[in-house]
């Protein structure tokens, strides 16, 4: 399974000034680094997303920092006030150097 694959969902259309939900699910194990392997008793190394950034037309809207306490295949929901048509982008990275981004379009009607 491709770690880091995700779906970003926003409404395709919005009214000017409307506050819309931005939702994203990403496939990632979100291993917190505090769990032990039940067979070997060894700590399982941390492997989780650390940061997500939400952009709208390349302007930074929100920064979300997270640790291994967020569930595997994490979900985030946040809001965005749409004043113009444009591109929603979420870029995200993990503690092992993985970096990805997803985009979606919203048009003002």
């Amino acid at each position, binding site marked *: 399974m491709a770690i880091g694959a995700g779906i970003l969902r926003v409404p395709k259309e919005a009214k000017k000034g409307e*506050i819309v*939900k931005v939702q994203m699910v990403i496939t990632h194990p*979100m291993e*917190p680094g*505090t769990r032990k392997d039940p067979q070997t008793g060894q700590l399982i190394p941390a492997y989780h997303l650390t940061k997500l950034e939400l952009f*709208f037309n390349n*302007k*930074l*809207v*929100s*920064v*979300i*920092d*997270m*640790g*291994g*306490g*967020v*569930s*595997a295949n*994490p*979900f*985030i*929901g*946040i*809001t*965005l*006030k749409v004043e113009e048509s444009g591109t929603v982008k979420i870029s995200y990275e993990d503690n092992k150097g993985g970096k990805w981004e997803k985009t979606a379009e919203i048009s003002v009607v």
Partner: protein
Amino acid sequence: MDRRRFLLLSALGIAGLTFVPGIFRPSFASSKLEEDIQKRLGVSLSQIKESADVKLQAPTIAESGANVPVSVESDIPVEKVDSLWIFVDNNPSPWIADVKFTPMNGKVYFATRIKMGQTSNVRAILKLKDGSFLMAAKEVKVTVGGCG
């Protein structure tokens, strides 16, 4: 008579008897939580007051601790808000996530799914731009599942 009604009602009665609420003491803040809050917020937990302006939603009982849905909302204008933190008192690492808001968010809203190792308080803390902190807390009982 009404054997069906009898069976139904007495079944409900018996079922009712099993719903006697458990005696869960409100979990007092763990020292690990206090450390985390001090480190990340720069204030101590005791200085943060609970406020009805922060609306934290989470299930009262979770049948799986692996995926507890949490959402935080507030009617405080987002222009006045700096950021949000989510903590789970009894987790090995109480800090879960934090969110930095800007006016472009339109409002204060954040939802995610979190892990809970055991029954615990979940806390959402908002930092306002004037430097003050507001908090909402809710206890989530994590139950054992399955047949072993």
